[in-house]
């Protein structure tokens, strides 16, 4: 108890220094939290993948479409309970270099797609309206919010993969069932794409971009994948079937270099915390060399002195950690507001909080080690003789 009082007295001797150190640690912990959250957001597609969905795409690359008649053949494979398909549309909305103007646009089969994706919740009347009109589209809640899309609005964009000017009427706005659901996508009828391309570029085939399969149980996945892919192995468009999780994982893999560098940076942050805190503790201990000698003379043991130094370091580092984590939330929010469609799903994970505190704690222990050792080792006489 006495020790606690001493620790706090010490802390308040150099109020400015303690406050600055806490602030320094807080910024570093906040950066740590932000980076971990960004890495988490990168993986959101993987986390949000359903356990009973699989994706069938062209074996050579996702850029090649696969024939529409595959649909019935896939549906007949034992274990497959439902099939739908979608096409990546691409397109350029407004100023192309603005991140805000990019979001995923898919041409989907209106009758089956939303059954396979129950996490995209569309009000029944809106879904019915979407199915009725060829040029209807459904947009995510976040996307609608950001661009101010309302029911009945017209969205116009310039096609790149499918050239020309394209227009849709917003007939539905979906909301995500889970916090990990992407609310920034846009869907429109595949039939619209099909008919328009027929008209605009006669002779250009329009096939499915990829198929989405629902399977009865996740145990069946390996069997289904093998069955589907064997079926088309010698055809014009051989396929690759994998779980939705693996499919999403392959996208994350493409940017793995960025994730790796972010992880390196988060280690650098821990080092920075250590340096800032270590600096403060070293300074304080040096200034108090004589006092520690006095304490020793009074009969305080080495253990007490270690507790004093360590206690001060831990109080500072943990306060910094807590302040930093509290700051993380508004910063992440601001970040997701600035780049809403780049990271559709961005949440501070509990593990991030635990790791942030852990990093602060570790830095506190490490920073106190050398100075505490020095205090214990310094003989009383030398300590007393030191001129600060």
């Amino acid at each position, binding site marked *: 108890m006495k020790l606690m009082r001493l620790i706090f007295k010490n802390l308040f001797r*150099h109020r*400015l*220094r303690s406050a*600055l*150190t806490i*602030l*320094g*640690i807080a*910024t*570093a912990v*906040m*950066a740590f939290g*932000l*980076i971990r959250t*960004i890495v988490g957001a990168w993986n959101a597609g993987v986390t949000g993948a359903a356990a009973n969905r699989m994706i069938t795409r062209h*074996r*050579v*690359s*996702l*850029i*090649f479409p696969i024939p529409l008649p595959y649909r019935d053949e896939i549906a007949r494979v034992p274990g497959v309970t439902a099939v739908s398909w979608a096409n990546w549309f*691409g397109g*350029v909305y407004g100023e*192309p*270099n603005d*991140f805000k103007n990019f979001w995923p646009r898919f041409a989907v089969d209106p009758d089956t797609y939303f059954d396979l994706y129950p996490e995209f919740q569309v009000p029944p009347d809106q879904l019915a309206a979407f199915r009725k009109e060829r040029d209807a589209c459904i947009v995510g809640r976040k996307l609608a919010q950001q661009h101010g899309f309302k029911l009945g609005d017209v969205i116009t964009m*310039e*096609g*790149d*993969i499918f*050239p020309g000017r394209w227009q849709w009427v917003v007939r539905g706005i979906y909301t995500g069932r889970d916090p990990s659901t992407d609310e920034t996508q846009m869907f429109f009828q595949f039939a619209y794409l099909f008919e328009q391309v027929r008209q605009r570029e006669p002779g250009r085939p329009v096939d499915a971009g990829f198929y989405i399969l629902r399977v009865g149980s996740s145990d069946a996945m390996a069997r289904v994948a093998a069955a589907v892919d064997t079926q088309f192995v010698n055809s*014009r468009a*051989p396929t690759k079937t994998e779980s939705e999780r693996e499919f999403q*994982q*392959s996208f994350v*893999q*493409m*940017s*793995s*270099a*960025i994730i790796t*560098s972010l992880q390196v*940076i988060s280690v*650098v*942050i821990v*080092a*920075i*915390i250590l*340096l*800032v805190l*270590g*600096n*403060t503790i*070293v*300074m304080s201990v040096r*200034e108090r060399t004589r006092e520690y000698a006095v304490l020793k003379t009074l009969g305080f043991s080495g253990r007490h002195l270690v507790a004093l130094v360590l206690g001060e370091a831990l109080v500072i580092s943990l306060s910094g950690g807590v302040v930093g984590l509290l700051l993380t939330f508004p910063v992440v929010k601001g*970040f997701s507001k600035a*780049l809403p469609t*780049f990271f559709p799903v961005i949440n501070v994970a509990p593990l991030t909080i635990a790791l942030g505190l852990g990093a602060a704690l570790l830095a506190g222990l490490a920073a106190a080690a050398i100075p505490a050792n020095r205090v214990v080792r310094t003989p009383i006489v030398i300590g007393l003789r030191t001129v*600060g």
Partner: protein
Amino acid sequence: MMRIPFSYIWRSLWARRLTTGLTIGGVALVVFVFAGVLMLARGLEATLVESGSPDNAIVLRRSATSELSSQIDRATADVIEADAGVARGAEGRPVLSREVVLVIDLYKKKSNALGNVSIRGVSSRALELRPGVHIVQGRPFQFGTHEVVVGKSIASQFKGVTLGAELAFGGDRWSVVGITDAGGTAFDSEIWGDADQFMQAFGRPVYSSLTFRLADAGHFDQFKARLQADPRMQYVELKHEREYYKEQSQTLATFIRILGLVVTTIFSFGAMIGAMITMYAAVANRTVEVGTLRALGFARRSVLGAFLLESVVLALVGGALGVALAALLSFARISIINFQSFSEIGFGFALSPGVVRSALLFAVVMGVVGGFLPAVRAARLNIVNALRAS
């Protein structure tokens, strides 16, 4: 006004080696990350921009964001090839390559994950158009056969693309007969073959783009206007090749910069606070010294200058250390997806004088901001009180 000698500043820093070292370390780490991010963005831009040659122009479908989403039919290609704006080679044939760009999946060596690789079908003039691309191993591919040459970045990053190996794509097998070195440009991350063979294999009737040498680089605008006036050419767009590649780098480079700068700005707070703590402690410890200096006749401004300079020296040493650390990164190469072309591009960290300047400037700013308040405190000390301090 008399200036406080620099040796005083230097010795003060040296007297508190541990603290000085820790602060320098903090600044160095921040500058390291800062410089690393800039080098990465520079490296990407350099790789892509250098891919384009100033004498070349590229024809794409209007509003196509990359060659991947572009389509040019044979009739259009014929019209452009016949235009006087296209340079003629030795036998009077146009220096133009009709190309098709597609993406295939290959397994990466390191992670065993699938990565996207660009394949470019070219015409016979392709190498003449891009003098930077050389065959370093094996030989060029033969037109009319299923032979390909592979960029060195692909050969080193992906499995099974060695000389003599066979690749399976487009329902056929393709033998690797050569490895190319394109001097670190985007072509190092591509596989090249005969455009007609690729189009046949993939059942694709149209080209992606046309690249040609301009007969006269100065007449680009006239050429462009001529195309725009031609009713048959309404769906195509003419661009300088460099311009096109610059656009290709934009999204990813901007993303790297934004992310990196957000992170380093936050970091720099930490480093500035570190410098501030050190300098405040320096002032507090040297109160008597400051009093003595003032008593000797040094002005308040000299004291302010000395402490500020001390902080800047601290930051500059840290900055130099950070840049030196970052320079080691130039040996590393990374390969990452460029979503604009939906394929992997290999590039390195490029250290340029501009990056060094920015990084050191950044360090100086941290030193000035971190040292200013403590220096003001030192300058405002009252002589008598300062001398009396214990």
